[in-house]
Structures are given as structure tokens and as C-alpha cells.
């Protein structure tokens, strides 16, 4: 882990304007050629990521949008999957999106050579369905909640997120613990250092107040997380409970498609391997007297969990997109904690840390050996 260095920049008019200002200056100085940044859609009731080159358009940028419909990692991957191109790009995304971006880079789905990831202390993000009820009202609610760092209206996974200030990109805007009308700008890499230097930002400031505030919030969230997971576990543990939890699932696979780390072009569970003959289906139905059709709903969920939980960043986009309101984000996030803990792995923590599936360590999983004694 790199040592974090930070500077302090003025932030009089609000964090969104501060970031836009910073980006505009950077584009002016040629530090970046283009920026991936959220923007309000023409109908005013949603936010999307836009790759912006025109400075005039930058003014409409809306960092720290109240909703996260497209996971920022998907946006970065869309631009850089096939190569790094000639443009120097800044991506203004949330910590969980930055983590997912790092995971995607490891999976060959994003080239970060020309990308500078800029994250920001995140208060959470609203459930989309709430926001769509009354966009203006909920935007105001979000901004109020942001001021007080109050997560009650945020996604369930956001409410128990202990990594909302995790720094894994190049730069990070720290609003917590900052003196009035200022915020921290923290560098985590040489790229970040270079940007700060070109912007004449001194990175030798004391980050103690940010560090301690972040630590305090993280610990409090961690306690909530443990409690929430304990409760959740009791409702989904055991095959009966599991099947019951996913009984309303219609296998639309929305969760899989909005997930930043589900990258397969053709998912195993959409492939020929799960397609069988009428005779096979009938035989199977006969063994129990009736069979839900299509069968294997839970198999899809468990299979997806097995494939991606090692890289899950607990963003909750899956739950947001679920057409049947199944708490899939909370469940997957809970299991992901445990899967990653098995390997002392935190997804997206570092580009240099290989994904456990393809990393062999001799000293690993000894608890499995002992279990057989």
C-alpha cells in the first residue's frame, strides 16, 4: 500500500463545484484530454457517465451524483477495454467504483495507463426506485444527507459500507475532517503526485484530521455491518431459506449484467450448458411431481456468487437493478466479505495484488487440511 500524501484546496462553493473547478484547471493545463464524469440527463431525472472533451460541457458535470445507475468501472472499461488510446483521461468515481476498476484492470477489461482515477469520500448512493419517485425532492434529500453524513436514505449496502473512503485510485478528494471551506486532495500514486504538482498543490499537508474521521466512521460502519450480516445470515442460511429468498427471482439476469465484475460475454448460465431437452426436463419434473420452469434459479445465484464474490466491491448495483426487489446485493456482499477474508484479499485494494483464483501460495487454506483430521 502506498503512503498517502495530501494537500488542502479551497472548497468554498460546495464539493461539486470544487471538483469541476479542479477538472477544468486540469484540462486547461493539458493534464487531461477528457474526463469521465456523471451528468444529468436531458429529462432531468437521472444521471449517466459521459466522456467529456469539451470544456463547456464540463460545467454540467455532476460528480457525487445521488444515483449510481451505471457502475463507474463499467464506464472506464467501456473506454479502455480495447486499449489505452491517445487521450489522457480522468475518471471521477466513487471508491467502490474505483475498486471495481482496479479489479477490471486485473481481468484485462480496462487499461489504466492513461487513466487517472479520482475518487471522493462517499456518503452512499440512493436506491434508484426512490429517486425516480421524485427526482428533485430526492436530490435535495441526498444533498442534505451528505452534509450530515447521514446514510439512512441510502442503499442498504451503503448503510453498512466501511470502505466509503478507501483510496485505491490515483487521487482522492477527502471532505471528511477538512476545515471549513476546504477539502483534502490526497495522492496515492506517482500519477496523482504528478497531477498535484502540475496544479501547484503542495502534498505535504497533515492528513491526521481526515484519517481519524475516516477511521471513526469506518469503525462505526463495521459494527453495523457485522450486526446486519448476522441478521441477514439467519434469514438466508440453509437450503430452504435460500430457495425461499430467491423464490421470486425470474432469472432476468439484470443483477449479473449491471455488475461491474461480471464480465463474461456469454454467461455460463445463458449458454448451451443450461439448455436441456424436453424429455430431460420432464424426467426431472417427474422425480418430484412438479418442477419450477425454468429450473435452477438458485443455481444461477450460487454460480454467479462463486464466480465473482472474490472481486465483489459491495456497490449494490445488482440489488438496485433487480426487478423483483430481492436483497441480492446485501447477500452477495455478505458472502464476498467471507470469501475474500479466506485469502486475506480485499477486492480492488491494489493493482499489484493478483486475484486469488489465479495466485498460488503454498501457505494457504490450511484450515481445509485441518478440517479433515
Amino acid at each position, binding site marked *: 500500500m502506498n503512503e498517502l500524501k495530501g494537500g488542502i484546496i479551497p472548497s468554498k462553493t460546495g464539493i461539486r463545484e470544487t471538483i469541476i473547478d479542479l477538472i477544468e484547471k486540469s484540462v486547461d493545463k493539458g493534464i487531461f484530454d477528457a474526463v469521465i464524469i456523471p451528468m444529468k440527463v436531458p429529462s432531468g431525472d437521472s444521471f449517466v457517465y*459521459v466522456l467529456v472533451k469539451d470544456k463547456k460541457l464540463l460545467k454540467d458535470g455532476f460528480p457525487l451524483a445521488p444515483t449510481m445507475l451505471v457502475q463507474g468501472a463499467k464506464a472506464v472499461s467501456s473506454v479502455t477495454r480495447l486499449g489505452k488510446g491517445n487521450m489522457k483521461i480522468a475518471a471521477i468515481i466513487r471508491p467502490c467504483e474505483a475498486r471495481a476498476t482496479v479489479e477490471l484492470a486485473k481481468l484485462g477489461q480496462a487499461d489504466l495507463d492513461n487513466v487517472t482515477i479520482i475518487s471522493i469520500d462517499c456518503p452512499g448512493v440512493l436506491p434508484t426506485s426512490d429517486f*425516480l419517485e421524485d427526482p428533485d425532492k430526492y436530490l435535495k434529500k441526498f444533498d442534505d444527507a451528505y452534509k450530515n453524513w447521514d446514510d439512512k436514505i441510502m442503499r442498504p449496502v451503503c448503510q453498512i459500507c466501511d470502505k466509503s473512503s478507501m483510496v485505491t485510485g490515483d487521487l482522492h478528494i477527502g471532505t471528511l475532517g477538512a476545515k471549513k471551506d476546504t477539502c483534502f486532495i490526497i495522492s496515492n500514486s506517482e500519477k496523482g503526485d504528478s497531477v498535484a504538482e502540475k496544479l501547484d498543490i503542495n502534498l505535504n499537508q497533515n492528513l491526521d484530521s481526515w484519517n481519524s474521521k475516516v477511521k471513526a466512521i469506518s469503525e462505526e460502519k463495521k459494527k453495523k455491518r457485522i450486526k446486519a450480516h448476522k441478521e441477514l445470515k439467519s434469514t438466508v442460511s440453509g437450503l430452504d431459506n435460500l430457495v425461499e429468498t430467491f423464490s*421470486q427471482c*425470474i432469472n432476468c439476469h*439484470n443483477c449479473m449484467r449491471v455488475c461491474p465484475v461480471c464480465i463474461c460475454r456469454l454467461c455460463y448460465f445463458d449458454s448451451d450448458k443450461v439448455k*436441456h431437452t*424436453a424429455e430431460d426436463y*420432464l424426467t426431472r419434473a417427474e422425480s418430484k411431481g412438479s418442477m419450477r420452469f425454468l429450473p435452477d434459479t438458485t443455481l444461477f445465484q450460487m454460480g454467479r456468487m462463486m464466480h465473482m464474490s472474490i472481486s465483489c466491491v459491495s456497490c449494490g448495483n445488482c440489488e438496485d437493478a433487480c426487478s423483483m426487489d430481492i436483497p441480492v446485493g446485501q447477500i452477495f456482499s455478505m458472502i464476498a466479505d467471507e470469501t475474500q477474508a479466506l485469502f486475506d484479499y480485499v477486492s480492488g485494494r491494489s493493482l499489484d495484488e493478483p486475484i486469488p483464483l489465479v495466485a498460488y501460495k503454498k501457505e494457504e487454506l490450511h484450515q481445509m487440511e485441518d478440517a479433515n483430521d
Partner: protein
Amino acid sequence: MTKALKLNKSAEEGILEFLKYLLESGKVKGVFTLKRISKNSAIAYSLITNPDELKDAVPFYPLMPVNAGKLMSRFTLKEGAKKPVAAILKPCELRGFIELIKREQGTLDNLYIISSICGGVFPSRTEVDRSAEKKLPKYWESVKKGEISPDLRSVCKACEEFIPYTADITFDLLGNNDIDKHSIFYLNTKKGEDLAKDMKGDFSEKEFDRKKLEKINEKRQAEKKKLYDEIGKKMNGIDGLVEIFGRCIGCHGCSKVCPICYCKLCEFESPDSEYSPSNYETELRKRGGIKVPPGTIYFHLGRLTHIGISCVACGQCNDVCPVDIPVADIFKKVGESIQKMFDYVPGKDVEEEIPLVSFKQEEFAEIEE
């Protein structure tokens, strides 16, 4: 005149009696219909082989968790049914299945199709928030009177295709005031007659009440006009489309639940549709910014082009959209206008070729002029 079977049972009981008879007599090895499948009564399609399991079946429940036409395609895609199976499908599900069969994505071999004169379904929201149960009594009242229940999917309210075309048996529901006491099964085909002939009940010759059904159709048409006007206003050129699809996140859920979308790997998910860095650079030279991932409207227009001719307006796409875009409304309107160009009704006749692959010399003469 069609042969019809009448049972002195309510619709709810009558259909179950019939299905029980089908299984117990061995006329079919399995029955495909809606069923309560879990402790908390989630409703899903089920393939039932043991008549005892029918007790949880709810064949005419106004929900469509998945378009059953798509399910029938999956059931018969790798190989047709070798043993007889009866399937209860709603008219649009049946039409979707027929359209898929035309594209080699399924077969009717050994299948008996039972459909109904359909009163429409609730959006799946009502299953999620458990309001479906509460809305049921009002729903059935509307069905009996031949009125449009206010709780239906938008496209159901505007649907004129509520009478199935090619079912072996059609159950009389919409506009039938008598469904609390009697069940009427129209036996449209020889297959349907053979299936029902050993059932204990009253057989007669009966016709659909055309007049009544036309009155219902008028109401539906009025709703359709309202729907088209509303969505038409929003679909004002490219700007209108950009507004409507502004919230679209490219999840492709609409495509995945659509009965007609059957490609293994959608064109818009294949490497062909990916933007390379130079594509982005070129686009940015032309305009100041580009949404990422790009191609939102392109996807929808593309999908319209590919499947619009066969859209049966079932409304699954509306239900699955995580950002509440009225995809079904748009596709119904545009789909219908494409279909009208060829006088084509998707799913009406399995022998009728899809216009895309059929050439008629006398066609589009107006374009020549």
C-alpha cells in the same frame, strides 16, 4: 361452430379439474402452468407431472413472471417433446412462441396448447409488493364485465389480441359473467377435441359471442389510442428518443425477457459493437462528449429493427426495466406500424412466413411511386 365443453365448476376450479383429468388419464405426461411455488407463495411457471401438485396451481392468475412463450421455446429448443404435454399460455405468450417456432427456436410437437380469452395481467411490481392478492377481486369483477381493470400493465389495457389464434383449447374468461359457476372450454382443433373428449362434462356446439368481444375490443382500442398519443408525444424525433431513453443504463434486461429476442450472443453485446479508443477519439472530435457506455438509442433502434416485426406487446420489457422506461409502449406502437406495412399479425399463423424472409412482388409499390 366450435365444439365446447362446459363444466359446472367455477373457472378457478374447472381448469384444475380439467388438468387433473389430463394427468390422471395419461393423456398428457405433464402440465405447464402458473403455480404457487414457495412458502411465501411466489408465483412461477411450473411443469407439473403429479396431479396432487395441481392443488397449488393457479393457471389464470393475472401475473406473467416470465413470458411462457419463451419458456416453451426453451422447453422444446434442443429437442421437441417426446411425450404429450399440455401448456396453459396467455394469447401473447402463445403468439410469441409461434414467432419463435418460425425461427426454428422451438416446436409444437406433442404439445397441447390451452389458452384463454385474456383479461390481462398485473405488472410484476404487484407480486413484489404483495398487492396482487388484494387487487384480485376487483380484477375478476372487471374481467366478468369485460371491462379494463385499472391495475393492468399498460400494454394489456391497450391489447386487441386477447383472443388466441392457434390454441387447441380456449378457455372463456374475459366478458364471461358466469365464471363463478361455469367453465367453458372451446375445443378449437381436432387435437383439442381428442384431448377433452373423455372428460365428464357437457359437450355442445358453441360460438364466441362476437358482438360482446367486439365491444370489449372497442374499449381496448380507445385505451390504445390514449397510450399511443401519450407515448407518441414523447417520441418526438431523436430528441424525444434521447429524453425517453435518457435513464437507460444499457442493462439489456428488456432484450433478455423479450420472448422474441433469441440470439445466443446479441449483436449489441458482441465484439462488433465495442468501441475502440480510436472510435471514442473520433466521436469526441465530432462532439464535445459521449455517453459511456455508448450506443443507448442505437441498441433500442437496433432491437426494434430486429424484432419489431414480431413484437407481441406482452409488456415484459416494461416490468423488468430497472429505471421504468416505457419500452413496451414504444415497441408496441412502432411494432404495430411495421406489422401493418405487411398486413402481418405476429403469431397468428405458424405457416405464415416472417415478412423479412418472404418476397412478394406486389409489395411497397408506393415506394416506387
